[in-house]
Every structure is written in structure tokens, then in C-alpha cells.
């Protein structure tokens, strides 16, 4: 393989021979050889293009930039002859130079160094400064969330004076999408989890001959915790992400701006129906999950522990306090509010790019699951304190 360029000559008289592949594909070799050229030259340089095969625009540009750095103030056009003498290095192109050389020469004349990936300025911020910046940022986030919540409440308040503000058809669609279509997966998971709990519980309890307490284990764990928590987590993954993505794409397409420009409130049209729909759907799903969980526990008790169904139900009645069922269900609307608000809020935050959409959808799911579990912990403490 021949070197793409070779410099010969001395003193004031230089010749640059170009040869080999001068297309974009040859760029890496060309770049290496260009860097090996002397930093500055004086006199005249004749650039001979006769050996260069398929000269490309990019390599020619790199050559011109390098020549300019070497001291050529004007590198002349493709026509041999026309030159300026005011520069330290006068360059002449011969041997059928490419037709675009004139254009590139013009562009390189107005060219100045600019690095695309410029490094950020070094910061001398101490850890205290970072903490302060972080606190201010968190404060503004909190204010944003509060503002968002306030807008939702304002719309809900407006419903009393203007019933049309409640978008019934939209509400029905979201109840269907977040609730009805989630029934199979919620049922299946509640059933399986309670089978697992009962199975593992039975193994431990049968050692003490306390098989019958499997019923207590299943009913209390499913009704108080498992039913509502698992349903909320499934719904956060299914619907929280869907809310964020739907509203996020509408943000990217300027659909929300269009709504605002038409005098409509995106909170009223997009956010409130989703929040209300989930507040309706999640308790219903929780009831279904509770029922499926009890069914799973009952089935396992029958098959594995040979507890007949009438005995299971009578034990169930004994083990249940009147509040057990409600202690689970009362959490559902709160979880629903958290999931729906996080999903729609993150969706409304999407700006500018597809990557933001993906990032905020992920954030929506992660945060809503975290908030659900956190709220559940608070409820647990509260119920113990209240002896509920």
C-alpha cells in the first residue's frame, strides 16, 4: 500500500504528491500522514493530485485545513496559476484537482477552530455547594409536584360548578384500560402468590401440628397486605408507564400545547380522567385479587392439607377481625392516586427528545412503586398505632 501523500523539496520550493485512496475510506491513513507534515513551511508548495484516486470531499477538507495551519493563507482555486503572494506559504494545485476544491477553499477561509465536544469548565464547588444546589433543586421539584397536585384539585373542584369538566367518556375508557384489561394478570398473580404463601406456611406449621393456622396466615396476609400491594405494583408497571408514555408523546408532538392554545386544560382532559379512573379501578382490582388469593389458599388447603372447604370458610370467619378486609382496601385509592399522579406528572415533564420520554417513563414506574411501598409502610405503622 502506497502512502497517501509524500512531501519533497527544500528551502522555498516544495512538492506534495498525493496518491492512493483519497476517498472517505482512506481518511484514517491520510490523517496520520497529514499530522506527520512539518508544522510550518515557507515558499511555494505544489500539490499534485494526479495520483489521487477518487478524491473525496472530506479528505480534501482535511488537507486544506492542515495546509492552512502550516501557513497557507489562501490555498487558491483548482485552476493552476491564480495565487496570492501575501502568505508565507503559497499553494498551487495541479494534476486535475477535484472540482469541489474551490468551494472548500472558500469555506476554509472563513473557518475557525471549534470543538464539538468541548469539556465543561472546571468547577471548584465544594461538597457544601453541591448540597446546597441539590437542596434547591429538590425544593423546586417539590414545588412542582405541589403545583401539579393543586391543579388537579382545582379541576376536581370545578366539577361541582361545571359538571362537563368531568370527562365521562374519557374516564370510562381509562377505567376499562387500567382496570378491566388488568383483571386476568392481577387474578393470576394473586392466586399464585397466595398458593406459594400457603404452601410454605403449611410446611412450617405442620411441624407443630398447626395446619389449620394456614387459613389465618393466608387470609390475613392476603387481605391486609398482599392483595392490595401486589395489585398496586402490577398496575404501576402497567398503567403508570402507559400514562407517562401517552402524555409524553403528546408533549413531544405539541398536542398539549395545541390543547392549551384552544383554551382547553390538559390537566382536565388528560390528567384528571386518568387519576380518577385509577382511583376507581384499583380498589375493584384489589377486591378481585383478594377473592382470587382466598381461592388459591382454599384450594391449596384442600389439596395439600386436606382441610375441606366448609372447615376452611368457618376458620376464615373466626380468624377475620371485622376491619381486616377494610384495612387492605382503604389503601387502594391512596396507592392509585400516587401511581396516577407520578405517571401523569412525569409524562407532562417530557421535553425535546425521545430519550427523555424513555427516561421519564422509567422514572415514573420506579418512583410509583417506591412510593406505594413507602406509603404501605406508613399505613402499617398507623394501623398498629390505631389498633385497626
Amino acid at each position, binding site marked *: 500500500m502506497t502512502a497517501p501523500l509524500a512531501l519533497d523539496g527544500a528551502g522555498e520550493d516544495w512538492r506534495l504528491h498525493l496518491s492512493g485512496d483519497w476517498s472517505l475510506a482512506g*481518511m484514517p491513513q491520510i490523517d496520520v500522514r497529514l499530522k506527520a507534515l512539518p508544522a510550518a513551511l515557507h515558499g511555494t508548495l505544489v500539490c499534485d493530485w494526479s495520483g489521487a484516486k*477518487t478524491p473525496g470531499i472530506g479528505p480534501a477538507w482535511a488537507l486544506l*485545513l492542515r495546509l492552512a495551519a502550516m501557513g497557507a493563507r489562501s490555498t487558491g482555486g483548482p485552476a493552476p496559476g491564480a495565487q496570492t503572494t501575501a502568505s508565507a506559504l503559497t499553494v498551487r494545485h495541479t494534476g486535475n484537482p477535484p472540482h469541489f476544491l474551490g468551494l472548500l477553499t472558500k469555506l476554509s477561509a472563513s473557518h*475557525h477552530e*471549534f470543538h*464539538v*465536544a468541548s469539556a465543561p469548565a472546571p468547577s471548584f464547588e465544594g461538597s457544601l455547594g453541591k448540597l446546597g444546589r441539590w437542596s434547591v433543586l429538590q425544593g423546586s421539584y417539590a414545588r412542582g409536584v405541589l403545583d401539579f397536585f393543586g391543579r388537579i384539585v382545582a379541576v376536581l373542584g370545578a366539577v361541582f360548578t361545571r359538571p362537563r369538566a368531568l370527562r365521562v367518556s374519557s374516564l370510562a375508557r381509562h377505567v376499562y384500560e387500567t382496570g378491566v384489561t388488568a383483571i386476568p394478570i392481577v387474578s393470576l398473580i394473586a392466586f399464585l402468590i397466595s398458593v406459594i404463601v400457603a404452601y410454605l406456611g403449611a410446611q412450617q406449621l405442620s411441624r407443630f401440628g398447626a395446619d389449620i393456622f394456614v387459613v389465618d396466615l393466608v387470609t390475613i396476609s392476603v387481605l391486609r397486605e398482599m392483595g392490595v400491594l401486589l395489585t398496586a405494583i402490577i398496575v404501576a408497571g402497567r398503567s403508570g408507564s402507559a400514562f407517562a408514555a401517552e402524555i409524553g408523546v403528546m408533549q413531544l408532538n405539541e398536542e398539549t400545547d395545541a390543547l392549551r392554545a384552544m383554551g382547553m386544560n390538559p390537566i382536565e382532559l388528560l390528567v384528571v380522567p386518568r387519576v380518577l379512573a385509577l382511583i376507581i379501578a384499583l380498589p375493584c382490582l384489589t377486591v378481585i385479587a383478594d377473592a382470587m388469593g382466598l381461592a388459591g389458599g382454599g384450594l391449596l388447603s384442600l389439596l395439600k392439607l386436606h382441610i375441606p372447604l366448609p372447615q376452611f370458610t368457618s376458620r376464615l370467619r373466626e380468624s377475620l377481625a371485622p376491619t381486616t378486609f377494610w384495612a387492605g382496601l382503604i389503601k387502594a385509592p391512596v396507592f392509585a392516586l400516587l401511581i396516577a399522579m407520578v405517571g401523569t406528572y412525569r409524562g407532562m415533564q417530557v421535553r*425535546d*427528545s425521545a430519550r*427523555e420520554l424513555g427516561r421519564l417513563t422509567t422514572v415514573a414506574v420506579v418512583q410509583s412503586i417506591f412510593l406505594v411501598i413507602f406509603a404501605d409502610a406508613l399505613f402499617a405503622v398507623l394501623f398498629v398505632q390505631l389498633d385497626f
Partner: protein
Amino acid sequence: MNVANATAAASAPIIRVQGLVSRFGAQVVHDGLDLTVMPHEIFGIVGGSGTGKTVLLRTILGLRVPQAGTVELNGKNVGALTAAERSALVRTYGVTFQNGALISSLSVAQNIQLPLREYYPASEEILDELAQLNLALVGLAAEDGAKFPSQLSGGMVKRAALARALALEPTLLFLDEPTAGLDPISAAAFDELLLYLHSELRLTVVMITHDLDTLFRTCSRVGVIVDGRMITDSLDGMLKNQNPWIREYFHGPRARAADKGAQADKGTNG
């Protein structure tokens, strides 16, 4: 790329479409469409809404498989290429899409570097130089390279998309509605940019446009899709065509104004 090659290739068409049939269910969009584009032309495609201009472009690019007919680019049948041949062919043309289709999570310079990185891996320095070259070619400042697509105006998006299309040094350029949505000054500036690049870089340009000013200012030949077929002619020929739709298109009130403007332009320029 040099003069001798360009004249030798001038006899062979750069695009040849024969007997193209495109159907969507029962709806027939193209019914035996033929099209030939010669090197160094600026070829404009016009037609009413729904006559399949974008479908034609997508078919030529190989993004859509037609129900019948062949598409040849540089003498190669687009429908019968191996993956390697396809990848080589794709590098010979550049495309801009209607809304720019810049990757929203990358800066303008990174958008330009995207195809370069894919096909010609090189050092960051070279890639930066090439990004600056393409920005300069389309008349964007080097500083614009650091901006993200969402920070650009409509005209700048079109220019940035053109810069990305030029990155692989294509000989053939496809433009889908390059001046749609631009103000008249930006659109006129884009026309001039296109003519400038066309003459300096010896490009062949195929564009879909509804902008009559662009059509009159830049195109050397025009193809009109009527009833699923293409009628091609020079602009002067089109103006004399008796087909009712073509008459309506080129003799409507907006066309007359655009024609007058173009005549005045040519008068002052030459």
C-alpha cells in the same frame, strides 16, 4: 468524482423505475409507473395529495417492496441486493425526510457524525473536522453543531438534515418537501443553497415538492403523478401540457405568480 468520470456516466440513467405497481389493499397508488433520472439533473416530483409521491420515494430507497416493477439505482436492482451490496449502495445517496428526522437525543454534529461513525470509523478529531465541513456546506455556523434538534428553528432543521444527508459524500440526493413549512426568505435561501451545492458538488437531486417557487427556481425536469403513472417533461413542456390536472396545477393563480417571479430572477441573473 472527477470530470472524466462524470461525462462517461452521463449516458447511463442514475435512477430507472419500470412498471412500478403499488397497492394498499384495494387502493392502487401506482399503476405501471415509469421514471428515469439522468445524472446531474434536479428532478422535481409533484402530484396531488395521496397520489403516492412519498410512497414512490420510499420504494426507490428500498424501504418498501412494490407489488410489481423494478427499481434500479446506478444500474443495480434495488429489490435484489445482498446485505453487503445494499450497504454499499446506501452510501451513494443521501436522504432528507419531511420533518428532518434528526435523532432527537443527539446534537446536530453528532447527527452528522452518525453515518460517518457507522461506515468510516475514524478519530474524534477527523469526525469533528468532517462535521464542521458539512455544517459549513449547508451554511450553518460551527457553534450550531453543539445544539440539539429541539433548539433549532424550522429552517435550521432542514439545513441540518441536509448536512447529515451530505455526510457520506453522496452523488445522489433525495429531498422530501425540503422547503415545506419555511418562510419565503428561508425557502428562497434553501433554493439557492441547493443550486449552489448542485453545481459545486455535481449532485443529482430528486425532490418531492409542493413549493412552486422552488420548482420553478431549481428543477430542470418535472415529473407529475397522474392516475398512477408519471408524466415527465421540462418545465416549459409542462406549462404547455393539456392534461386537466397539470393545467390546473401549473396555471393556477399561485403558479402564475411563481412563474413570473422565476422569470424575473433569471432575467436579473443572466
